């Protein structure tokens, strides 16, 4: 086994919910015991519904917020305790691309200032050479030098996302965390940005943690997938294994919800699972159901499910958190 690259161990982030006078304190368990590891040069995808804690995991990996418990090991170094110079060194290794390209660029800074800033902070190049380096970066993401002096509001969503990706590339990171980088974009633009990510990976071999709820994109891009549900990982597997034979009932549900396009009417298609009524909605992370958090929506639940919380266990070359698999 090679040296571990990114190791997330039992990561937890709980937020205190606002409570009235005399009420007992309640916690929103945004992330509750998430563990996975990412290999060098690979793409790890985190999928799940809105509100399952994917973005919180992203921010924890970047040390933008501090965890309630657990550790994040980057190249065997616990980043949750980093400070000062070692934190600044870590910031050169891991970068992030956010979902909303309208909110993630400073509206009062020109492109050259936004992209030049990491060079200044980390003293990577002399100030006089920043301009040419920024031009090279822009070229990498498919933008011309005329973008230099413009402000963010002069660009379209796709162009802004290109600028955000360029900003992530300034420090030549080893890992980029992309937090739903496509979901705010038009479908035609999504394909362009997706190809940009592929191209960057081919050129520089940067590892990627790709957070998404678009399973087609995940299948196309990733090597390994973690399926999240209400702050925990319910299934962890290689992309092909997961998509060809999902084990956890929640993974099945997610996969069945993907629209399929086929020209063959007689092709064998797994039936679509429909949830109605109470089952259709994801429970609030304040009131996580007892036992398996997925049991109120599960088609295959049995008596054990609302009593015991299933642990993530090895099952046939992958990890599943479900009482169906022993």
């Amino acid at each position, binding site marked *: 086994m090679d040296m571990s690259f990114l190791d997330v161990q039992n990561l937890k982030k709980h937020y205190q919910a606002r409570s009235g006078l005399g009420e007992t304190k309640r916690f929103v368990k945004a992330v509750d015991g998430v563990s996975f590891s990412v290999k060098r040069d690979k793409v790890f995808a985190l999928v799940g519904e809105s509100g399952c804690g994917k973005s919180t995991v992203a921010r924890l990996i970047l040390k933008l917020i501090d965890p309630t418990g657990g550790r994040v090991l980057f190249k065997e170094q616990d980043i949750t305790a980093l400070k000062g110079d070692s934190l600044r060194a870590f910031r050169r290794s891991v970068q992030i691309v956010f979902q909303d390209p*309208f909110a*993630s660029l400073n*509206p009062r800074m020109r492109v050259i200032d936004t992209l030049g800033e990491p060079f200044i*902070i980390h003293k990577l190049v002399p100030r006089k050479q920043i301009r040419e380096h920024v031009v090279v970066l822009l070229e990498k993401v498919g933008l011309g030098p005329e973008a230099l002096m413009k402000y963010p509001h002069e660009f379209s969503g796709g162009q802004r996302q290109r600028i955000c990706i360029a900003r992530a590339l300034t420090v030549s990171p080893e890992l980029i965390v992309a937090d739903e980088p496509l979901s705010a974009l038009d479908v035609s633009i999504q394909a362009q940005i997706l190809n940009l990510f592929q191209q960057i990976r081919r050129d520089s071999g940067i590892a990627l943690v790709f957070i998404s709820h678009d399973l087609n994109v995940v299948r196309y891009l990733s090597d390994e997938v973690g399926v999240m549900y209400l702050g925990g990982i319910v299934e962890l597997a290689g992309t092909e294994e997961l998509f060809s034979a999902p084990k956890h009932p929640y993974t099945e549900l997610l996969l069945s919800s993907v629209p399929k396009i086929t020209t063959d009417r007689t092709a064998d298609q797994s039936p679509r699972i429909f949830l109605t009524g109470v089952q259709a909605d994801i429970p609030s992370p304040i009131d996580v159901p007892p036992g398996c958090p997925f049991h109120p929506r599960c088609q295959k639940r049995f008596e054990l499910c609302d009593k015991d919380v299933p642990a993530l266990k090895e099952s046939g070359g992958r990890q599943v958190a479900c009482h169906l698999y022993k």
Partner: protein
Amino acid sequence: MITAGTLSGLAWKRFSRNRLAVFGLMTIALLALIALLAPVVSPSDPTAINVYKVLSPPSSTHLFGTDELGRDVLARMIWGSRISLKVGFVAVGIAISIGVLIGAAAGFYGGRVDSVLMRFVDVMLAFPTLFLILAVIAILEPSISTIMIIIGLTGWMNVARLVRAEFLTLKERDFIAAARAAGAADVRLIFRHILPNALAPVFVSATFGIAGAILTESGLSFLGLGVQPPDPSWGNILTAGKDNITVAWWLSVFPGIAILITVLSYNLVGEGLRDALDPRLWQDGKR
């Protein structure tokens, strides 16, 4: 989508459509010009006493008449406008500097820092400002610099609250997280990333603040606690006017109108700025 121009260009476009605000801005510019050029445009020495022309009504030689010592009222008002301008800008400058620093620290760091600083703001707001100023002037010598400093020291709380509120929302934005991920230190985040985006309401507040400071200075000078004679100020010309109001209306009317127009102009500009800088009114929709 806007094809060209910056955010400030957009705001200027909105501002220039507001006729009253533009009128206010032009009046302020004119007053500032007069104040700067006082030695040139003043018809005579504002302190030159002429006992033969005591309380003479407006005429071609003395457009605004003369006061109880025969001094030209127009000349005194022109020199007095320097005081108003200086008090307005210096006092508000002090207030903004303090308010921005305290509001930024409270909003950015939050938690205990925020609680302590904001309770301090509450305490400061609980003081009746005018009486505080009167008390300080009773102890210190009444002078223009004392007044400017005290108005500044008692006028920053509103700015601090505005800046704090802006910081609270801006610090959660993704571009701040991105700058943090790029390794930006707190000072850079506060002054380079958050503050430039938080200044719009501060400008608006400053404009209203200048109007308030000019009024306060006039009031204090009127009470004899501000600019001391023989130096002229709109407030202390009014004091002389009060004593002679039955025989010399021009001593009260002209400085009164000057104060009114100036304060009104600043308020009009303030309101124009408030509308022009309100992001909810931008056609762009997203910032």
